[in-house]
């Protein structure tokens, strides 16, 4: 596996969008092996602390291993220091792990802390870049089309959810390696990580 010369093949769509007071995060449910759909209900959004989440694209084993490590590290940090890790802290920690031992993944670390809400995109070798919105995976070009058109600074929670859902719908339509429904979650400092229920998703998607 040579990661330096080859662009990471991910076969996934994940998205993170900041809004006024929090962040919306989402991902599709499809796992592929070449042209074969290996699984139709994969979890790609992982809660790693009360108000920080991770989305994963790339090798499932590497992604799951990282999510376990991060969840444990963030919990220990919080227990020892009596205050939660910041999103920037979590992104830097993840980047440091990846610099030490590259994983075949493309990640988003998203969340809310005392400094506001943010989205960090993290590459396989530990590059970490903060942004106000970001999309990863093979479906990202289609999602960026929606994002470039519809993202606004200081959107409401509802508008950010709509943009995320539209973007994921677009990639499900046009990217062969994305689809089979989606997970969507909202993170705010006060309410923490809230995954949308099936009913909430149906209501949201029918409102588009």
């Amino acid at each position, binding site marked *: 596996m040579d990661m330096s010369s080859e662009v990471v093949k991910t076969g996934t769509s994940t998205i993170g969008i900041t809004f006024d007071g929090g962040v919306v995060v989402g991902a599709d449910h499809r796992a592929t092996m070449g042209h074969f759909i290996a699984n139709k209900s994969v979890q790609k959004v992982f809660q790693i602390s009360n108000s920080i989440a991770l989305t994963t694209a790339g090798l499932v084993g590497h992604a799951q291993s990282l999510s*376990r490590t991060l969840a444990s590290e963030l919990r220990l940090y919080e*227990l*020892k220091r009596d205050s939660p890790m910041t999103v920037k802290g979590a992104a830097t920690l993840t980047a440091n792990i990846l610099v030490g031992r590259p994983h075949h993944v493309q990640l988003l670390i998203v969340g809310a802390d005392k400094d506001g809400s943010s989205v960090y995109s993290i590459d396989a070798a530990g590059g970490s870049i903060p942004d106000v919105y970001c999309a990863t995976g093979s479906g990202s070009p289609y999602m960026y089309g929606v994002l470039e058109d519809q993202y606004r600074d200081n959107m409401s929670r509802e508008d950010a959810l709509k943009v995320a859902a539209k973007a994921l719908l677009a990639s499900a339509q046009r990217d062969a390696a994305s689809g089979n429904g989606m997970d969507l979650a909202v993170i705010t400092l006060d309410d923490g990580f809230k995954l949308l229920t099936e009913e909430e998703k149906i209501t949201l998607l029918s409102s588009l």
Partner: protein
Amino acid sequence: MALEFMQPSGRGYDHGVSTFSPDGRLYQVEYARESVKRGTTTVGLKYKDGAVLIVDKRISNKLVITDSIEKMYQIDDHIGMTTSGLVADARQLVDKARVQCQINRMTFGSPISMITLVKKMCDYKQSFTQYGGARPFGTALLIAGVDDEGVHLFETDPSGAYQSYQAGAIGRGRTTVIDHFEKSWKNGMTQNAAIKLGLEALQESLEDSLNKDTVEISIVDANGYNKLDRETTLKHLSKFK
């Protein structure tokens, strides 16, 4: 006179951690237990749906900022711990316990069971009584937690021995508290009754009265570990007085 009295069994056998005396005792371990007996009294007791841990931080100096002293520790979502003895030693054990809980989550994807954690901690403590080079921990732990088997309350001592209790205590006032619990602890108490009994027993073991600013109460039940906030703690204390 006192020295001569100690000579036959004791002399020379309390230097090494890992050397038995001729009558089969490990003096350094016994001395470590003494430091627990000089420690803050902390109590724990089970009730109908969970377990209560209570400690009075006993800060004698008015100038000390009470929040800077820790005696009640959350170890994982479902486990809490109080300690008696050397506070610095206790912090090492608390760190170790927290890491063990996360290692279990990372390795097996599930929260650690109480008996697994207690055995891990006691294996660690025991190793300092069998190998030379470092002294034993001068610390006892009172660990309360909930797992698939239910609610548990464990006590560990510096040798690495552990026991599970319905109601227990460690530290200076242990004997008084245990006597009190033996008389008054009942199966199936309510949470409020358990807190009241715990406070009573703790109070009985102290020369002066409980300090309302330094008493800490934690609950472990099906919802996990929860340290009561100041307001709720004061409410319990006022009911008790």
